[in-house]
């Protein structure tokens, strides 16, 4: 069973991701509502995958990606973006995020993306 950390400042979005992935066997080990918490929770729980929102308070998702990958280069991180954030998605991928999913979430897209990055060799 793959473990997941969900980082998003909106409780609404965290619940939606959780509801999509838990029935498919993913275990949500923790949640974070800003970039600083995301880094802390990653260190605490070492999840197999992180879903990372881009726009968050205190520290952006992109900066959190950089912090996590600096210390844990094998981390698997998926960005959660919205329409109009293409530049930031590209910046996230350049920072080392493995893929992205677009809001509003389509369950099949979320699940397909997580499955795909779990299969990738690091």
């Amino acid at each position, binding site marked *: 069973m793959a473990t997941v950390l969900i980082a998003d*400042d*909106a*409780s*609404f*979005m965290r*619940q*939606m991701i959780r*509801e*999509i992935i838990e*029935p498919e066997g993913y275990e949500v080990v923790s949640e974070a509502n800003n*970039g600083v918490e995301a880094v802390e929770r990653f260190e605490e729980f070492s999840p197999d995958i992180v879903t990372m929102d*881009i*726009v*968050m*308070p*205190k*520290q*952006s*998702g*992109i*900066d959190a990606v950089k912090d996590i990958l600096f210390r844990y280069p094998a981390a698997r991180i998926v960005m959660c973006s*919205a329409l*109009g*954030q*293409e*530049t*930031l998605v590209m*910046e996230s991928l350049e920072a080392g995020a493995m893929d992205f999913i677009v*809001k*509003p*979430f389509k*369950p099949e897209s979320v699940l397909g993306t997580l499955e795909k990055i779990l299969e990738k060799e690091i």
Partner: protein
Amino acid sequence: MSLDRAKYERLFLEETSEYLAEMSQSLLSLEKDDAFVESVDTIFRLAHSIKSMAASVGQDDIAIFAHGLEDRMQAIRTRGSLSDSGELSLLFRALSQLEEMIRSVHTVGATVSLGSDVFMALKSAGPDDSEPAHAGAGAHAPKKARS
């Protein structure tokens, strides 16, 4: 699989209620010329979140309106200041309209027209507003920030 739409509509109304209150506080800070960068970042981020949540529950008019506000906040952030007192007034009116649109979800759906003067004013480019809105909160500092 399908998600429980009624549940997410309820969550949308609960969470946006908190966001609107926080936006109001940030606008009052802007009015007092206090904590400019933080206030603009906060309103940008909350408008962005409302946009995503509204789109997720099929409230497309609210999503489009919130996107207009998000773009305007990004323009202000890039510019580093409000263009004039009229822009602050526009933001207050935009918040009021956004509240009205979300409130109307309780009853008959979002009925406030996107053709309103407020939305048109949000979308019209102010001075030095030529750059597109792409930056996330905290991702890029404003060019001429004042605190």
